[in-house]
């Protein structure tokens, strides 16, 4: 059987484009906007989010037959919150500068609707193997939008990418000015709006 025919492959790729959690389902916008001023924090956020999403999906999927229906939200919140604390402590231990920059937004993964949504919509009804791929796909689908948005913002707002200068000095000497608006709040709203417009045109929705 070809790899592109397996159920795991399909669950993994669907959230990347056609069912993208941010652009199509409009979930988890909150943190997507706040951390995207630079590329590096966005990549870290993507990794943290993918880790929490994949592992919470697996844990909840393993527990799905033991969780009583009417207290499932509390159980899910406890699982997610513990995993987020784990991710937060790891970031503080190994990537202190970035974790300071992300400040409360790592903790806010707890209330990110994507995680709750995937737990409710997928992990409660599927086995751990598929849930793992679903979590991975959704985390990366969320993350790549983050990285694209942050690349735009860092390039236009500061003339750098990952901290390296991209816009040449000659351009500044010739009168080029960084667009300060991109770093501020309105820039990100407008960038995401235009990107979603582009994606809608592309997928023909």
């Amino acid at each position, binding site marked *: 059987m070809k790899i592109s025919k397996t159920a795991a492959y399909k669950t993994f790729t669907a959230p990347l484009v056609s069912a993208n959690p941010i652009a199509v389902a409009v979930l988890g916008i909150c943190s997507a906007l706040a951390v995207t001023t630079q590329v590096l924090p966005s990549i870290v956020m993507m990794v943290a989010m993918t880790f929490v999403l994949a592992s919470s999906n697996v844990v909840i999927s393993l527990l799905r037959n033991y969780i009583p229906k009417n207290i499932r939200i509390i159980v899910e919140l406890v699982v997610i919150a513990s995993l987020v604390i784990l991710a937060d402590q790891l970031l503080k231990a190994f990537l202190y500068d970035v974790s300071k920059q992300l400040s409360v937004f790592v903790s806010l993964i707890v209330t990110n609707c994507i995680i709750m949504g995937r737990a409710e919509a997928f992990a409660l009804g599927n086995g751990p193997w598929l849930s793992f791929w679903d979590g991975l796909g959704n985390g990366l689908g969320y993350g790549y939008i983050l990285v694209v948005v942050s690349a735009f913002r860092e390039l236009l707002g500061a003339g750098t990418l990952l901290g390296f200068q991209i816009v040449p000095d000659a351009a500044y000497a010739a009168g080029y000015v960084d667009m300060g608006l991109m770093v501020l709040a309105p820039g990100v709203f407008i960038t995401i709006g235009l990107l979603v*417009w582009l994606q809608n045109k592309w997928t023909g929705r």
Partner: protein
Amino acid sequence: MEALISLFIESVFINNILLALFLGMCTFLACSKNIFTAHKLGLAVIFVLSITVPTNWLINHFLLSPGALAWMGFPTVDLSFLHLVVFIATIAAMVQIVEMVMERYDPALHSSLGIFLPLIAVNCAILGTSLFMRERQYNFSESVVFGLGSGIGWYLAIVAMAAVLQKLRYADLPKGLDGFAINMITTGLIAMAFMAFAGIKLS
């Protein structure tokens, strides 16, 4: 006193919880179609925020921060890693209590708020405000003002958005731009208007 007023102005306008800190976007995008719902939801957020932030301050100060348990005889215990779980539990419990009290004493308001009240428990504006309160190390009176100000800021933003969207319904937009894309761009323009307040300082 001036510092408190300044903090209030800052949390309502300059560091607006929604337009500058991007918290509570999901509910904001989902519930801004009708100005009346937006108004009710905004009031509920003000109410819950101004209760939960001081409550979480008390819990954080007397139970969780390093050395806070000294009054119980455990001066070396540091429970600060638990703050996330405790905050979210407090918020969920607070929302539940508010809902029960409201159902008992004002059933009309309760039924008109409907599903929005429980939804507030997972609104990241509520948790985010508590986390910012902890990170910026506000004292008690500052946390009261910060909670109230953030709530009012969120209320203003969602009502403004609902009003704009109501007019926008008659606009003829290009295909693909309508819906989420134009909502984001509109929010961007509102955020730009709020940026005009930057720099106001009373103290």
